[in-house]
């Protein structure tokens, strides 16, 4: 029997282990190569106007990917190695020289790595075309994507992976020297020390996490960096202690409840978990932190993307609106809009507006470039406002009388101040007229102009002022499917002159789309990779456990535990291991979102996308759970 045939037999025998390791390497290469080739893609560079700033974002993201890919490969390598320690021990026992074994392991890893890189680059080429198309679509670019292998991307990938693979190969080579024979045979017993749960550490974890959450809401220092570091330190250390001590402590405490503990499989489940937690504290910490980073990243990206429509609608509440100049143009525009059968008109309004100068010094907000004493202010009659609200599906039945007025928050007002109770003075030619705000709207009604002060006044006041200042009229249309009104929007732009303040929802929407397209793409890409990583890491981990638990479950089967009972306890244990880091991750993510982005968690428009991201994440994550339970069950319940 030559060493070669032994090796071949071993690969056949351990095919599953090899496959898992090999696939993880391919996965890493595919991800990395795909991303890097996006970075070098000319099509993308052409489609992004501010490429220079974008490039640095891409580079940062690719550094994160390198870190991630390294950890991931090292992780699956460790998993693979652990499975093979006995085999290596046997070679040694059979008298194969250490040097030969070392060499064999070295070349084996190297060759597997090389093949993985080759396959990875090929798959990555296909994938990168797909992703390029996706990105260009997000950017609404019309450039065609060609099939090409980017030389720079290949080189970049080669360098990164050569280093990683060389490192793991050397580690594989050292394996035989690093351990005594007996240790190689007892590989599975490693890290199985009973977890000690010190009350101090358990309490410490709660204190650390609570502390960092607390300072998120009550900053203790002005310095952002110090503040952020404190929060991060608290969260990371607290989470680690949580998994290392608190959970074990709680599980131990649950053992005290004898009648529950000594019931059915609880005894087995609880002790198994306690046993596992200490050895897995680092992994679980990593997973819950990865989860929260991923969730944050996608939430932010998706939040922006989700709110594009809202933002665009605030820029341009109507599908089309412009200031009427003469009947001929109005008629032509009307024709264009009516001809567009794909976008039937849902509502059309003539909106009469008066512009006067106003003294708004009583308000917190002053438009940029204006003095508060004299700011162009636009007035709308309350009956007109109610018509608008109806067409725009806003439930408002506003009533105003005398000097009462309603404010509409200007687009650039970030003061969050309430205008109600404040007064402004309208400067009319005959006399000045003070009006008092009794109501405030956050949603705007007409296309954006600068300055952007719209005030709703009573019909009576409006007619009075109209006698002094001539109103002008907006033609405003609301059509169905306004996101795709590209042709009509273009035609209107051609037809109507600049000073008509033409505003189309479509234009605003596409503009927003482009700017958040790249964000969501990058964050989504990283998020996806991280999700795959977290899922795979737990999957490996659990499979690994399943292998070392095999014998225990066989014993249980022999003393009369049914397969179903084994499956049940296995599902419960696995759920615990999956759910805990996820719940902790979601909690952290919520707080981090608050800390970094000052997200107002009560606001619906932000909560919905975050909730959706979390739901999607949980669903995919649960997919991993089901897969893990199935695979583990196959291992222990044969």
């Amino acid at each position: 029997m030559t060493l070669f045939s032994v090796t071949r037999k071993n690969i056949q025998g351990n095919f599953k282990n090899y496959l898992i390791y090999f696939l993880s390497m391919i996965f890493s290469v595919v991800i990395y190569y795909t991303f890097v080739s996006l970075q070098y893609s000319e099509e993308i560079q052409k489609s992004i106007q501010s490429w220079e700033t974008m490039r640095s974002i891409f580079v940062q993201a690719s550094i994160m990917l390198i870190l991630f890919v390294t950890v991931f490969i090292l992780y699956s390598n460790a998993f693979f190695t652990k499975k093979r320690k006995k085999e290596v021990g046997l070679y040694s026992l059979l008298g194969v020289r250490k040097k030969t074994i070392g060499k064999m392991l070295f070349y084996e890893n190297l060759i597997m790595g090389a093949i993985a890189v080759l396959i990875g680059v090929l798959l990555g080429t296909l994938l990168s075309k797909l992703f390029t198309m996706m990105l260009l679509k997000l950017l609404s670019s019309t450039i065609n994507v060609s099939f090409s292998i980017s030389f720079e991307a290949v080189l970049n990938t080669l360098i990164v992976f050569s280093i990683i693979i060389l490192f793991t190969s050397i580690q594989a080579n050292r394996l035989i020297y690093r351990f005594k024979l007996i240790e190689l045979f007892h590989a599975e017993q490693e890290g199985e020390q009973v977890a000690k749960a010190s009350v101090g550490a358990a309490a410490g974890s709660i204190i650390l996490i609570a502390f960092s959450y607390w300072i998120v809401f009550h900053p203790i220092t002005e310095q952002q960096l110090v503040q952020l570091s404190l929060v991060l330190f608290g969260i990371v250390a607290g989470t680690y202690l949580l998994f290392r001590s608190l959970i074990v402590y709680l599980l131990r405490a649950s053992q005290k409840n004898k009648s529950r503990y000594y019931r059915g499989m609880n005894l087995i489940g609880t002790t198994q978990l306690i046993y596992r937690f200490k050895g897995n504290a680092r992994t679980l910490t990593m997973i819950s932190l990865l989860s929260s980073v991923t969730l944050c990243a996608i939430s932010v990206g998706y939040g922006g993307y989700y709110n594009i429509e809202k933002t665009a609608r605030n820029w341009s509440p109507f599908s089309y609106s412009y200031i009427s100049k003469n009947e001929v143009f109005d008629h032509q525009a009307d024709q264009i809009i009516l001809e567009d059968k794909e976008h039937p008109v849902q509502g059309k309004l003539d909106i009469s507006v008066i512009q006067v100068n106003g003294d708004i010094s009583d308000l917190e907000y002053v438009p940029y470039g204006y003095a508060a004493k004299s700011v162009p202010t636009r007035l709308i009659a309350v009956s007109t406002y109610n018509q608008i609200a109806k067409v725009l599906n806003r439930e408002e039945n506003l009533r105003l009388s005398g000097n009462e007025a309603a404010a509409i928050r200007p687009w650039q007002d970030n003061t969050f101040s309430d205008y109600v109770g404040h007064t402004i003075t309208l400067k009319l030619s005959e006399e000045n007229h003070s009006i008092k705000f009794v109501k405030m709207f956050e949603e705007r009604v007409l296309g954006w102009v600068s300055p952007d002060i719209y005030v709703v006044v009573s019909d009576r006041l409006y007619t009075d002022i109209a006698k002094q200042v001539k109103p002008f009229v907006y033609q405003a249309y609301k059509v169905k499917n306004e996101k795709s009104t590209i042709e009509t929007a273009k035609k209107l732009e051609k037809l109507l002159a600049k000073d008509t303040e033409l505003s189309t929802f479509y234009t605003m929407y596409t503009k927003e789309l482009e700017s958040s397209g790249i964000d969501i793409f990058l964050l989504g890409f990283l998020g996806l990779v991280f999700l795959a990583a977290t899922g795979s890491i737990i999957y490996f981990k659990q499979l690994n456990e399943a292998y070392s638990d095999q014998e225990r479950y066989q014993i249980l089967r022999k003393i009369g535990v049914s397969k179903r009972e084994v499956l049940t306890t296995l599902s419960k244990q696995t759920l615990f291991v999956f759910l805990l880091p996820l719940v902790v991750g979601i909690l952290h993510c919520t707080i981090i979102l608050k800390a970094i982005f000052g997200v107002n968690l009560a606001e619906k428009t932000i909560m919905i996308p975050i909730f959706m991201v979390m739901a999607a994440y949980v669903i995919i994550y649960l997919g991993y759970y089901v897969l893990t339970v199935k695979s583990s069950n196959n291992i222990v319940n044969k």
Partner: protein
Amino acid sequence: MSILTVDHLEKIYEGKVAHKALDNINFSVEKGEFVGVMGPSGSGKTTLLNLIATIDRPTAGEILINGKNPHVLNRKETALFRRHELGFVFQHFNLLDTLTVEENIVLPLTLDGESIKEMDKKLQYVTKKLGIDSILKKRTYEISGGQMQRTAIARSIIHKPSLILADEPTGNLDSKASKDVMETITAINKEDQATVLMVTHDPFAASYCHRVIFIKDGQLYNEIYRGENRQAFFQKIMDMLALLGGDNRDLSTVRL
């Protein structure tokens, strides 16, 4: 009353070459009996035990335990049957290293949802009897091989099974520990009328039995009774083994 009846039992391992591991085995074990099974390596001892233990299914023939045929039960019922009617002692102790000695012992009771009080009572009783009541809180890697095997025995008898099956219970023990374990089994057999079927290659261990059944190449070869004198019985067993020939000792294979 016979606790175990084995009737025309046959086991063929299918494979590239079908192998008849057991051929027309008939015997029965009475309540309170302590029976040994011996034979050369590969003669089918473990196979026999596995069939009785419902871990494997016979190709033909019937096994009745307490008048019931476990092989006609469905999977769930089989598990329950194993749990209630059988107790196991293995060469490799088969204790869970995640549990303490106490937890290992009460495991069969927890599976059946016994009350804590009952559990405690039974635990006290068996551990006193087996002399392991002082190590209850220890973990399995903190105790000696003999203690481990006695723990395994305690687990196998705590739920008062109809039949205790032991496969090479002294296989991993030195002679002093072997003696302890065999005396323990003898004691529970005598005092609690436990019925025991034990596979062994160790003539010393076998000499504690009332009766030893010899099998060779899957067939019943002979059967000898102890009578009064253990020393004489031991000698008879040695003679029979010599007659049987073959390698009596199971090779401890390198297990990968």
